[in-house]
């Protein structure tokens, strides 16, 4: 992916092909990434079972679960048999003399990850365990370390966001920063933020706005306005989820447990702000572009068939930093902060500017305000 390009374009899965033909896309020559591949050639059925469960993951995200196996039709029978026996395999792991310690550990992690509970209901200890498992699993698969946290919401914090319409020039640096920060799928060019280019003098005509432009900005006679998840105080998406895989945290962030989501997309239908995204196919991020500072509820690797969304960069905001979009904005149009802190910039904006929110009549109470200079 070229550095100068303003936006990502489809790379037609070239990277993926390269990866499956021996390498792993991480550009590392130490052999760690390749070693599981070599193990595949071993005759033991046990190895096949391991491969069926994690074979495709070793060069990318380590979150695919045991049953979500990518089936190669040619070797489908072999893999199917192996998958069926994976339970037995996991048991035999403990007494197997032939399998390596790593493979044993991988199987163990996959097993525990498949049958873990809902993050929302986990105790801090359980949260730590799953995070440790996920980090270890990534290490086993790619030979690289990631740092993942499970920080809970701090007390007396309620995050809010304000957007200065007068300042935004439509550069979309926020969009790029967001994609890089949050490890969004590069193939489908998933973006949480949409920048709407609107004509001066027509007011907020969203339906006539262009939210997918590729020209030089700012265009004469236009103004720009960004939308993303508004982290509603009364979020309709949370109510509709049949399994409570999405919820509002204490600090106001609306988050998703990617491992608990069943992918019914009811929340997507319920969101009035186009704030949610679905992984229609397996999300892919080139290994060298992966942001390794992760949060369980934030930018960790997602898998195929689950929802995801803007989390106000939970991995940053809970560390006292601004979200990536705020930091990246060259015009200062984006303001983020703690609504409960009377000295915060966001409070100053809310108290001194004429602010408004979108679709207030729906009663969703977004924590995302717009204002003009």
């Amino acid at each position, binding site marked *: 992916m070229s550095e100068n390009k303003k936006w990502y374009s489809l790379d037609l899965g070239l990277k993926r092909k390269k990866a499956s033909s021996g390498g792993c896309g991480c550009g590392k020559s130490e052999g760690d990434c390749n070693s599981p591949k070599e193990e595949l050639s071993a005759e033991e059925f046990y190895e096949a079972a391991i491969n069926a469960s994690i074979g495709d993951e070793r060069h990318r995200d380590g979150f695919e*679960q*045991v*049953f*979500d196996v*990518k*089936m190669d*039709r040619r070797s489908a029978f072999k893999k199917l048999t192996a998958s069926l026996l994976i339970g037995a395999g996991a048991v035999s792991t403990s007494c197997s003399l032939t399998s390596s310690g790593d493979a044993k550990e991988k199987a163990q992690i996959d097993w525990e990850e498949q049958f873990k*509970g*809902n993050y*929302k*209901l986990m105790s801090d200890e359980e949260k730590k365990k799953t995070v440790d498992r996920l980090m270890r699993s990534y290490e086993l698969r790619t030979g690289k370390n990631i740092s993942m946290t499970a920080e809970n919401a701090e007390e007396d914090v309620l995050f809010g966001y304000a957007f200065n319409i007068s300042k935004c020039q439509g550069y979309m640096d926020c969009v790029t920063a967001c994609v890089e920060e949050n490890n969004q799928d590069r193939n*489908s060019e998933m973006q949480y933020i*949409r920048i*709407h280019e609107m004509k001066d003098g027509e007011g907020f*005509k*969203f*339906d*006539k*706005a262009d*939210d997918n432009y590729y020209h030089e900005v700012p265009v004469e006679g236009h103004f720009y306005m960004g*939308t993303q998840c508004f982290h509603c105080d009364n979020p*309709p998406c949370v*109510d*509709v*989820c*049949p*399994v*409570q*895989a999405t919820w509002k945290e204490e600090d106001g962030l609306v988050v998703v447990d990617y*491992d*608990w*989501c*069943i*992918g*019914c*997309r*009811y929340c*997507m*239908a*319920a*969101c*009035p*702000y*186009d704030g949610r*995204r*679905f*992984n*229609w*196919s*397996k999300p892919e991020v080139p290994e060298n572009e992966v942001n390794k500072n992760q949060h369980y509820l934030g930018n960790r690797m997602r898998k*195929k*068939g*689950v*929802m995801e969304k803007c989390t106000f960069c939970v991995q940053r905001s809970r560390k006292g930093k601004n979200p990536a979009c705020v930091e990246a904005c060259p015009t200062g149009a984006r303001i983020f902060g703690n609504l409960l802190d009377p000295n915060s910039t966001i409070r100053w904006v809310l108290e001194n500017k004429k602010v408004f929110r979108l679709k207030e009549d*729906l*009663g*969703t109470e977004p924590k995302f305000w717009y204002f003009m200079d």
Partner: protein
Amino acid sequence: MRQFKVFKSLVVDSLDTITKGSVKYHLWMGFLTLIILIGMYCYSIQLEEGLSVTGMNDRVSWGLYISNFTFLVGVAAAAVMLVMPTYILKDIDFKQAVLIGEGLAVAALIMCIAFVIADMGGPAVLWHMIPGIGVFNFPKSMLAWDVIVLNGYLFINITIPFYILFRHYQGKEAKKSVYLPGAVLSVFWAVAIHLVTAFLYQGLQARPFWNNALLGPRFLASAFAAGPALIILVLAIIKHFTAFKVEERTIKKIAMIVTVAAQINLIMLISELFKEFYAPTHHSESAYYLFFGLHGKTALLPWIWTAISLNVIATAMLTFNRLRNNPKVLYFCCAMLFVAIWIEKGFGLIVPGFIPGPYGKIVEYLPTSIEVGVTIGIWALGAFIFTILAKTAIGIELGELRYKSKEDTL
């Protein structure tokens, strides 16, 4: 102990019945199996690649699967229109038809569940939805309600006919005190499954096209037209191919139900059209898109106008006694209504709910061939299940299948 013996014998006998039949029967089942296999192949591709192989996307996130699900919930609910007169109003007319109706409900419900699973991004973690093991968002999520009512209705519709057939199989009369409470419950339950399914859409303030109070009642009206219409067609086929007797009176009564429901459905359609177009607001855009197209995007026009024409013609024809009493015209009208309401619930209801999107963007939806393959496969699965159920039920009702106790055979 004896009950188990009888049950075992029933299973053996019914397996015997469903594997034997005329050449036409075998051709039919073979044909269905082929389609099911094609559907399974398409689904395996979807499992491998993800839902990106369907025509759905972030803007139109529900499509053919959820459309068919919605429609089939209606078909399943329609069994109540036969159950009520038979078991509760004691109108003996429907007795033969009601077992067929309940069999149809079972097949429709299984198809519903299959469509929902086909639509899921993570079928491997569906256990998250099982109360007790998973986390169920009850009573907040309407989808959680739907899971409960659908499975409950499936249970009722399996147990009641099973009890009755089980008794008949032994040459005994079914005891009213046993099945009547279930039948009464099923009547309310049938209304509930359809209303709850309507609430699934109706409760979303984000989608003004669905967020209207008429949606639930209109679901019921269209379901009570399409469901019994299908039952009439199925009864006609059964009458033609088997010795199972379906009285003329029965079909006439069901035809009456279809007619009234179709008329009510039309009245509601007029009310909806009036509301959307007399004083159009920002919220009428989906309706504009559906009926007239918006900003040059017109993908749904052929569908909806076909549906409306079929609907109006069929309802008008059914309204005249003389036409309705002519079996050939009746069957023709029922087929038209069935197709019309299928379109109305799918391309006419689910898809335009997403178009235009929350910020007015119009992205049109067209199902891919894989999606169509899976859909047809699930329909074939439904037909397959129904054929098996109906063949066994008919066998028992005709007295061909009877339990032979040892005393009898000696």
